[in-house]
């Protein structure tokens, strides 16, 4: 959004002008190629909620190992000698975090800010972000994967269940959108 080109363009990572996003279809093709290569090389697609789940299980394994051995769900992740972090989803999540950070810095989009609709306060936006995070992640674990692991990865492999739950994600969001329109409009 610069109007006048500065005589000396600033070189720093944190104050370069924000560049526009790539065209959605270009982004989609690039994402599709990353997803394809992931499947081709490793047999696994992409994922986010599974890795977060394992990070939490790792923390619980450190703090309350006895609790894990009494909880069947956690037992499969971290019971006994199992290391909950020894899974493909963990490096993918950490990589995604750094990949986003580098893309943001290179394109001048890294900035401490709160993105929200014009009619709500910063505090309300953060409260709803927190609640939304809880809901999304709870649903993702129930569905055994989120938009990345199920909708994208399962969708590309034509898994029937992944397509059903992808429709449900959109149905849930569209169904509620009207009632929470003040959050975004």
């Amino acid at each position: 959004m610069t109007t006048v080109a500065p005589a000396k363009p600033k070189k720093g990572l944190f104050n370069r002008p924000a560049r526009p996003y790539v065209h959605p279809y270009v982004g989609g093709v690039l994402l599709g190629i990353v997803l394809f290569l992931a499947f081709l090389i490793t047999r696994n697609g992409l994922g986010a909620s599974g890795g977060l789940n394992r990070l939490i299980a790792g923390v619980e394994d450190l703090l309350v190992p006895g609790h894990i051995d009494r909880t069947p769900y956690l037992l499969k992740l971290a019971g006994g000698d199992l290391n909950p972090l020894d899974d493909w989803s963990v490096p993918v999540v950490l990589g995604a975090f750094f990949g986003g950070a580098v893309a943001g810095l290179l394109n001048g989009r890294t900035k401490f800010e709160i993105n929200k609709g014009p009619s709500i306060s910063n505090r309300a936006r953060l409260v709803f972000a927190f609640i939304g995070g809880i809901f999304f992640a709870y649903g993702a674990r129930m569905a055994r994967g989120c938009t990345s692991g199920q909708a994208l990865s399962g969708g590309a492999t034509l898994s029937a269940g992944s397509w059903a739950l992808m429709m449900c994600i959109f149905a849930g969001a569209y169904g509620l959108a009207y009632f929470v329109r003040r959050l975004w409009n």
Partner: protein
Amino acid sequence: MNPIFPLQAFLHPLSQNPWTYLVFGVIGFAFGYVLEISGFGNSKKLAAQFYFKDLTVLKVMFTAIVTAMVLLFLSSALGILDFNLVFVPETHLWPGIVGGLIMGVGFIVGGFCPGTSLVSASTGKIDGIVFVLGALVGVWAFGETVQPYWEWWNNSGFYGRLTLMDVFNLPTGVVVLLVVFMALFMFWGGEKLEAIFGKKDLSKEPKLRLAGAGVLVALAVVVLVLGQPTAADKWASISAERTAALESRSVQIHPGELLGSLANQRLRVMMIDVRDEADFNLFHIRGAQHVPLGELDTIVPQLLSEPSANTVIVTISNDELEATQAWQLLVSNSVPNVYILEGGINNWISIFGRNDGEIHRRSGSVGEDELHYSFDAALGDRYEAARPLPHEWELEYTPKIQLQQRRNPSGGGCG
């Protein structure tokens, strides 16, 4: 030639090849990078999807899905990729539907999904950071509260490795082409909606996107024309190596080894008895599953998504003929750790049933792969010989089972 992808190293536990963690890290990096440059770090852009103002989410997601889908099935058709080894999320229909709806609520309320919140957080967006914190609470809460509905979560609407091809009973190529058409239709409709609700000027959209759509359709047609490799094609590609294994008798295990494996806590033995129902009802080894040879292909998806790393499959017929055919079918479909019971049920009974008064050796000539014994009653697995006690038998045999440790590809620890 055997398909070279997915790479062998990724079929085994990752800790056996530590460099594989790095590969996943690089894939994750590319994933996060692409999400960010597509605008997915910005919650306003994501939420606009649900007010029809900016359909970036739909466009990026479905372009990615169809691109990856076409490339996946093209690689499979060309014999580069073994699709049976690709992780297809199992269908747990009801938990998926309920979980999906809950995710939808989280999406519109929170403004992100987990993957996008990560890149939002890493580019300094405070709402993204807070969403990630909420998500960590959410995954923790699920682990703590799933117990009361554990049965429902694991079993309701469970169909295993089920694809749209199975649901609609259509060839893979047809489904691929239909999904491409559906996506293109959604893009066309989405752009119309953006013009109405988002006041977007469609004439400024690059014309190149039409060429891209043409390429996708063309590739999908190639997938349709080539078709996916059949079990016979796959067997042809591996037959030399596997026939050698059959002929050197390295996959036929002695009844004593089967008995020992059944008692071995570290192995999970799955016996698949492929004989006809009459023979199975007369006598079978306790714990054996009855799957007639003609129906064997229906359980292949279940065997492929078998989560246990230590599962051994043993095929059983009266002699070895049908058991060997079953072995070929399973091996052609990339099912790991499959063995044949040496000499079949006849050999088993000749060892464990020789003192049983209710089992009689039939006189006269008996055809190949037919029972050499007759029984007073169809007791199934209630004969002593159907459940011999391992410690009562000291048998000499050459152990042949070499367990290939398999990596469980379902990352969230589900299943």
